[in-house]
């Protein structure tokens, strides 16, 4: 369960203050695929970063699976993220000098797994996203859709409870975007991941269980679709 309780985030730019979020309250149950939507500058990515433990709220608190993220030090947040959160970015953000398999293995370097165990985890993750045969290719040898699937494999290789995705289809064509959304939905259904996704893509509403709308830092509406069991 993700609980966002009266969260505000204020950025200071010299003498000016930017209220990126104001008094946001929401809950996302476990195993739900939730989307954060809204116009540019509405605070979607800011909220996503707070839920993922990448930033600290200026007011309020955030609980993720019983862990209160507010007030944790940067190092404690890093340790928590390494164990509990997988990230997918709009522009994939793969390390260009590493192969697909090595990119996927990166989060595992922070664990105590042996080299053999790491290799098994990598192969499992790549097989889930359907890229086993491309594991020795570098990012510049992969298409956009393939790179994003490698990024998803990197995000799930540590088997996190929570996946956060910031515009994962923003740089993809329609076909690849559908493939990625289908993959994310599969991760939710088959592997019971909780997924929080920032998106402008209206197609995403077909795949998600819950949609939250933000505008000017305020939660406007949170729709919860009835789960089809």
């Amino acid at each position, binding site marked *: 369960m993700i609980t966002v309780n009266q969260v505000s985030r204020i950025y200071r730019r010299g003498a000016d203050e930017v209220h990126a979020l104001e008094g946001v309250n929401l809950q996302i149950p476990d195993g739900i695929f939730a989307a954060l939507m809204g116009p540019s500058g509405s605070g979607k990515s*800011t909220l996503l970063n707070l839920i993922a433990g990448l930033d600290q709220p200026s007011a309020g608190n955030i609980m993720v699976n019983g862990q209160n993220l507010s007030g944790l030090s940067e190092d404690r947040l890093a340790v928590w*993220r390494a164990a509990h959160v997988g990230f997918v970015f709009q522009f994939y953000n793969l390390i260009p*000098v*590493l192969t697909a398999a090595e990119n996927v293995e990166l989060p595992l370097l*922070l664990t105590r797994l042996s080299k053999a165990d790491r290799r098994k985890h990598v192969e499992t993750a790549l097989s889930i996203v359907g890229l086993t045969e491309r594991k020795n290719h570098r990012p510049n040898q992969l298409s956009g859709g393939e790179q994003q699937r490698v990024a998803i494999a990197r995000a799930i290789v540590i088997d996190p409870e929570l996946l956060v995705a910031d515009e994962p289809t923003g740089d993809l064509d329609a076909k690849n975007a559908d493939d990625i959304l289908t993959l994310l939905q599969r991760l939710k259904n088959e592997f019971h991941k909780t997924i929080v996704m920032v998106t402008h893509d209206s197609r995403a509403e077909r795949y998600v269980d819950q949609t939250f709308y933000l505008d000017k830092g305020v939660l406007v509406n949170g729709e919860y679709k009835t789960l089809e069991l």
Partner: protein
Amino acid sequence: MSIWTLIRRNLGRNRTRTLLTTLAVAFSIFLVCAVMTLPSVKTSILERTASSLRLVVHHKYGIAYDNLPLAYAQRIRAVPHVTGVTHLTWFGGIYTEAKDFFPNYAVDSETVGDVLREYQFDPVTLDKFKKTRDGALVGVRTMRKFGWQIGDEVTLRNSVWFNITLTFKIIGELPDVNPLSSTLFLFSRQYFEEALRPYEHLGSMGWVSMLMVMVDKPENLQTVSTAVDEQFRNSAHPTTTETQYAFTATYLSSFDGIIQVIMLVGFLVVAAIILIAANTAAMSVRERVGEVAVLKTIGFRRRTIFSLLLNEALLIAGLGGLLGAIPAYVILNAGKSSWSPFLGPLTLFLMPVSVMIQGLFIALFVGILAGVIPSRGAAKLNVAAALRQIA
């Protein structure tokens, strides 16, 4: 894969930049090693030229100030604990051009072998030297430099002693026992005085540049030294008597200033290289802000990011250090090799192993200084802000 895989791959990201930075460090470390060898040159000369039982007697105000009377030799022989006295007179002769200089002295052929024992004069050659009026004993390096053979005639002209020109017959070689002996040109004082006779009315006769005195035991060095100086304290030509080691050290100390300037220049070069390497490291980190943000997002902590980036700088600096220090050691020890007769004064540059190790540590220090600020900046990067930049 390991963190070292990531470090190595990152260094290969821009191979030209990595190569140029490594070579810059290598050249600077080579230069620094050469510069740091300079003080050891002085030590090497002192160790190889010193005789523990020999004193050098010269004019009180310096060897270049004035000569000493030849008659002093006889008086010094009478000082207790003195076992031998010889004298040398600087000729200042030039063979071809002034730049091809080598030290040349008129010596007492009868006593030079007894006092300059470490020169290992061959007895047969020495005997011939005593009997050959115009004979010359020449150091092996000088022989090789000019391609002379035993039996050759050599003419030296000089501007110190009334522009006289003397022709000598080379009758023997001085072995390569120390940097000085291997370059010397020694000839008979008698031959020299014959050439000076036309200028006798100008007071040219009976002067020597310095006297060398052998003492029976090391504990008597100070006693003899004091006795000699006391004898001539109130004369028109007072003396300073000092050990061979002290005499050579005083002479070499005149180069201390220039050595310090050269060392300062060398270390300024290192400082410049640190700035270049730091700029390279900073550029490399700036280009990878997004990747650093992703690594931090994944969960890499500040100290891991810091050590990742710092190790990149250390690897470049360490490799540059090896590429600079090891060739410096090999090249600056060429003086020990069979090539040494052809290397001239470079043979004095014998780089100790300690200088090579110091050079490697300086290289690592360069890496630390160059890498620590950009690495620290990257480690402290605000992840959310960096992700906004790359979004």
